[in-house]
């Protein structure tokens, strides 16, 4: 495969240096706060969960981090590079090679008119792959990793169940070897049994590929099983952050205490 190694291979990164540094990030919609003064560091291999109710600003924060919206204030540094200061071309290149974004609705992250194999292969071609056999081989490999049978490679995602579509979206996103993955409610619309399988898959991928992940969800059970660290947001601000099980089991802020005590026990 004729790929530029700088674009494609997993780059060596000092595990003791943050991959992403966010400082004072703020986004306003007119007088209303989207998110305000958000700061955190994310290290290689770390999964950061962001929880809060609808309207808490967690999705705004994610889209500002991923560059889908422009933040008004603050700094984002990725691998030592100033993200908000870079040109649009540079940022797009970064989001194609180093980053991935998994949407809540697979339809937003997949091309529904293109086969499963095409959905995965397209990403490889976007970073320079040209050899058909290699692309197809790699697509089959990735469909296998997300537990989609090889004989479904020529089917369109419209023929897939919701859980399969979500797994396909993950394959499409991870095939180019990103280091940072943004996830917006990735288990949101799925049955609980399908959710469990997806959670297990994501845990394995994070561990085996050393991915850094920022996952936005309102589901505390999902973050408990997936996230190392947790940020709790309310009205656009981070009210509490820490080790996931510590925040959930010994919440310090009044809002987090309310949130945790409101979860129905099963």
């Amino acid at each position, binding site marked *: 495969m004729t790929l530029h190694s700088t674009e494609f291979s997993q780059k060596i990164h000092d595990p003791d240096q943050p991959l992403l540094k966010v400082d004072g990030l703020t986004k306003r919609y007119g007088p209303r706060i989207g998110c305000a003064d958000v700061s955190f560091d994310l290290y290689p291999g770390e999964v950061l969960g962001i929880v809060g109710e609808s309207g808490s600003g967690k999705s705004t924060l994610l889209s500002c981090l991923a560059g889908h919206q422009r933040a008004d204030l603050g700094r984002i540094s990725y691998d030592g590079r100033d993200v908000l200061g870079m040109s649009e071309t540079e940022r797009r290149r970064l989001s194609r090679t180093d980053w991935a974004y998994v949407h809540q609705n697979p339809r937003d992250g997949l091309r529904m008119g293109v086969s499963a194999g095409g959905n995965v292969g397209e990403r490889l071609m976007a970073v320079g792959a040209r050899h058909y056999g290699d692309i197809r081989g790699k697509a089959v490999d990735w469909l296998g990793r997300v537990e989609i049978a090889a004989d479904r490679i020529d089917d369109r995602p419209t023929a897939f169940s919701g859980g399969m579509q979500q797994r396909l979206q993950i394959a499409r996103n991870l095939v180019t070897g990103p280091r940072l993955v943004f996830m917006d409610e990735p288990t949101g619309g799925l049955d*609980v049994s399908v959710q469990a399988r997806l959670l297990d898959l994501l845990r394995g991928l994070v561990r085996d590929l050393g991915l850094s992940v920022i996952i936005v969800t309102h589901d505390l059970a999902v973050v408990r*099983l997936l996230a*190392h660290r947790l940020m709790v947001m309310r009205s656009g601000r981070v009210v509490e952050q820490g080790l996931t099980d510590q925040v959930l089991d*010994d919440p310090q802020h009044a809002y987090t205490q309310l949130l945790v005590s409101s979860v129905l026990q099963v």
Partner: protein
Amino acid sequence: MIRIENLAKSFTLHNQGGAVIPVMAGAALAVGPGECVGLTGQSGAGKSTLMRMVYGNYLAAGGRLMVGALDVATAEPRDIIALRRRTLGYVSQFLRVVPRVPTLDVVAEPLLALGSPVDAARDRAASLLKRLNIPERLWSLSPTTFSGGEQQRVNIARGFAHAYPALLLDEPTASLDAANREVVLTLIEEAKARGAAILGIFHDEAARARVCDRLVDVTGFTPGLAA
């Protein structure tokens, strides 16, 4: 290996009028390598609270909480994550796992997280499950459907998969029959022999007498209870 000094803990209940409940003050103890220290005190005295604080699951309000070279009371989350991965194991009374993951993989996971090859991790998991008398036909099933005693043994296998230098054991022999209790006590003795520092809660008095080198009564650390 574990050294606690002047440790304090209180809970602030913001949604109940901001009531502040002090639950621990002046807690102090030390556990050396190869030593097992048992926590005693009546139910509610704070044995589990103390264990959870050592694990970083509950935040300390003050004092020092050294595990190896790390002060858990003030450590960054990321340092506690690394500590839990390599140094500090915890067998709680509850098994919390992703549903539908096979038992063998649940037990092997701590080793995989440390970068062990899959085969080696599964072999180690299999030998522990075998010792703890979990029938091989159950290894491919999720433990979420197992009986209480079986879940407890899976939890123990997982906790002993990696040779942690420090271990927290919360009632490891509760709900086990005599044969499995014996296996668990032997595992604890083996861990001590290889130099692990163990802090445990054992309601089973005979078990406590057999594996614990010293006992610490947490009643002395409980504000209002200490006479």
